[in-house]
């Protein structure tokens, strides 16, 4: 059997047995999402040096902040593909979007100096996942 045919068969069998197929689409930000959050944003913030003021001057108003203002999050939401569900959505008219969420979580000490920052990436199919900030 030719390798191409074999590969195609493998894709079809895998798809049928798994029940869904991920269809990659051009990436685009969800409506209303922040768009200035990149992998480089994490490096912009230096623990032990940057303060809450510096962080906001660089990234703008945070998307979420704890009541004591010692933890804050910058978030973005991007569509990266669609999911084709066999049997459930045979005509493909209700393809659920595959969303990638990015959360830049910043922890500050009582003086407002950054002590830690970490980027969390999560894939979801519609519901907003946990930011990983507890």
């Amino acid at each position: 059997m030719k390798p191409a045919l074999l590969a195609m068969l493998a894709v079809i069998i895998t798809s049928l047995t798994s029940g869904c197929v991920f269809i990659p689409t051009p990436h685009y930000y969800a409506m209303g999402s922040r768009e200035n959050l990149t992998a480089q944003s994490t490096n912009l913030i230096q623990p032990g040096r940057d303060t809450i003021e510096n962080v906001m001057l660089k990234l703008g108003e945070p998307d979420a902040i704890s009541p004591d203002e010692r933890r804050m999050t910058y978030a973005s939401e991007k569509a990266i593909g669609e999911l084709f569900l066999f049997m459930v959505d045979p005509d493909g008219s209700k393809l659920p979007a595959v969303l990638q969420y990015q959360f830049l979580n910043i922890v500050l000490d009582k003086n407002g100096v950054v002590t830690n920052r970490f980027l969390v990436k999560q894939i979801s199919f519609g519901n907003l996942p946990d930011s990983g900030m507890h």
Partner: protein
Amino acid sequence: MRVKISVILLFVLVFAGCATEQFDAHPDLLNFLSDGKTTKQEAVLKLGQPSGSFEAEKILTYRLGFDPKNKGYYLVERGPDMGLDRAYSTWLNTKFSLVLIFDVQNVLREHSLVEVTK
């Protein structure tokens, strides 16, 4: 006559949903901001209620839209969080986040206009 009115009404109803929101953009909206001079009172009088206030009101933030036609800014209220019970804000119609840092005398110490959407 009745047919004419019905047709007009139909058009109004059909195209009402296509109307775009109009914003009153001002190219000079932020010209008054001057580090070391502008007071918090002036800023609030000029820009209104901030979208965010942090560190005992030492940091105020505003959301701004931008009209490329006249290069003007307009203020955007922090909108509802898309009605999806999400704890995160949305940036609909917003281009910039204006961050104002005030000193203990409530005088503008530093400010920045951060582009949050492309």
